[in-house]
């Protein structure tokens, strides 16, 4: 039994209430103005996304992971940075979830909290030095 439990701890994704209720998720909800828990995982967003071939996590998987508070996985994936903000997903979502807005919120939260930079072509030193707002506006310029 002890071995079994140890094994389970290693192989299983732990779903934790404190993660689900984390501040980051509230930030995402605030910025995007959408309730991610509405999502019932139909996959229509991923089905219509033009950039989906280049994404490490599909848009619906990002929402799913957000629902259970798995921030690390979301931040490490390139999805939010590949997203072209074409809004196809938001327009088509049957539950009215603004997926593109969630992606934007995700980008902002990542940059403001200096969570992950491996997807950005900016040196770590700069990220540490620059104010987050400068990073965001700079990033916007790169995108444009």
């Amino acid at each position, binding site marked *: 039994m002890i071995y079994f439990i140890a094994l389970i701890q290693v192989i299983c994704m732990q779903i934790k209430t404190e993660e689900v*209720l984390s501040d980051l998720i509230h930030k995402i909800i605030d910025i995007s103005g959408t309730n991610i828990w509405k999502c019932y995982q139909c996959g229509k967003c991923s089905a219509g996304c033009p950039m989906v071939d280049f994404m490490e996590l599909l848009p619906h998987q990002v929402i799913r992971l957000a629902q*259970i508070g798995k921030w690390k996985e979301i931040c490490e994936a390139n999805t939010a940075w590949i997203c072209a903000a074409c809004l196809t997903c938001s327009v088509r979502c049957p539950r009215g979830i603004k997926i593109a807005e969630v992606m934007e919120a995700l980008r902002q939260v990542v940059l403001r909290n200096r969570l992950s930079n491996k997807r950005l072509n900016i040196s770590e030193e700069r990220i540490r030095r620059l104010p987050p707002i400068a990073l965001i506006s700079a990033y916007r310029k790169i995108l444009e």
Partner: protein
Amino acid sequence: MKGTPPRKIGVFVCHCGKNIAGVVDVNRVVEDISRLESVAFAMDYKYMCSQPGQAMIQEKIREKGLEGVIVAACTPNLHEATFRKAASKAGLNPYCVEMANIREQCAWAHQNDPEKATRKAVEIIRTMIQKTAEDKPLYEGSIPVLKRAMVIGGGVAGIQASLDIADAGYEVILVEREPSIGGHMAQLSETFPTLDCAQCVLTPKMVAAGTHPNIKILAWSEAREVSGYVGNFTVTIERKASGVDWTKCTGCGMCMEKCPIKIPAEFDRGLGVRKAIYSPFPQAVPNKPVIDREHCLHYAKGKCGICQKVCEVGAIDFDQAPEIIKEEVGAIIVATGFDIYPKENIGEYGAGKIPDVIDSLAFERLLSASGPTSGEIRRPSDGKIPETIVFVQCSGSRDPEKHKPYCSRICCMYTAKQALLYKHAVHKGRPYIFYIDIRSGGKNYEEFVARAQEEGVIYIRGKVSRIYQSGDKVTVVGVDTLLAKPAQIDADMVVLAMAMVPKEGSDDLRKVLKITADKNGFWTEAHPKMDPVGTTTRGIYLAGCGQAPRDVPDTVAQASGAAGKVISLFSRETLSLDPMIVSVDEELCAGCGLCVSVCPYEARILDEKKKVAIVNEALCKGCGACMAACPNSACIHKNFSKKQVLKMVDALS
């Protein structure tokens, strides 16, 4: 052709649009059949069952003086009744009208071979000519109807059916096994999707049933024997010994208050306590207690007797014996309801040994304002308010290998409701639901599930594989199939949405009522689509979860449907009996009794004195089992005699 029938027979060949005429050459069939001596008239028409088609048959019966009619068309299941009715209007005995099935058994079966199909159609009609020639005019018998109904089971289905029948002006006897009517619905907290309190909507109906002048409630009673037939049943009922003289008891509750014995209450799924003298809940109807003889000190040790001392009206009667009564009724509604599949049967979910893993009905009691915790959600082990609850749907349902193959139909909805109510009660709490599919078919049901999701109930798609205690927590191991990742949650409490199973004791009642049940023990309806409230026994109807898992609105609707059937039965003074039954030739019958044992409808008894089998014409359905079993050919099916069958076979050879 040998044995030429002496009768004037008319043959009417139907095209059924292209269904028959597209394969079978109907003109040739009519031509071939017309040549037969016994056929007085033959014709074809596009749709025989249509109004003009029926009129043609009627016209020809009058014009040609036909003594027998064969309609070569579809299966008799479809239109035999139609044509018999039409023929009887033209003065022909309806039992001299036969169907020759050249659609299902010919045209549809041989679509690629029109030539052979045409020949087969002729053969089928020829055999039917032989049968029709020997058909005797039969007349329907009639039996009186006793306008009094019995409802077995006093849950919401039984209550609704009783009220509907009683309101129509007929007397109803409502038999309930427990001390009070109310059933499982009385245990529920709030009901989906409107979240109105179950007690608030149910108790007015309970009171209405309890005070209705046409309803007699026999609580703490069970049906032990049923004899008779539609319109004329005799039911033997055991009134179990309650130990309390209910005619004297005022329902003051003093006895229950003073009784020193405390035992886990069944009504609270073992989470609360009751006394040895008890009534299941405060709003009970009738509000009279019963003594649990197994736990009462008086019966165990001959001591105590406190209840007797405190009872001001002297209602306690320790020596009360069970009473057997007989009731005569014309119709019976079976509303026996359901039980919860025991969680002990699922080893990987803790086999009932983990205190904080409870079934969904127990959680209803925790949510209920009148429950053991007065509506506060506290886990059974230490009374802590759980901050994480995992709900496991399909616990035992949709598992044909190990448990039950069917979907219990209400679990998706009540789990969403329970998770939502928990979220409302414990704001910091987080409910997780493991599901395989969310089945929310019903008015406003999908919207309700969406509401639960919006309010933060987290749905995880996957079946839980293991639940175990780890320290203070209960660990749930499952999978998130949408992410393709195994998932684990450390929960404070787990609620299992257990499968619904037929009420314990249904099998005994099945033998008493002589009705059938499916392989899962749910009552079998007369027809799954066209007669979902009837049974194969005329005069016995079904309502509620005893037939199949269903929610409250569907149960109430079905109960009203069953009541409607009973009321329509009672609207007649007499009932007609189908004359297509099997009689006994007393001279040939040796009284071996084989037919008595094979009869599925218990329509036969053996007259010991005369040593012959006797048929109860009201019960016989004319299935012919006795005819096949009888070694002496003494069983004679009216209009399906051995002579007829042999002549039909001869016609083919």
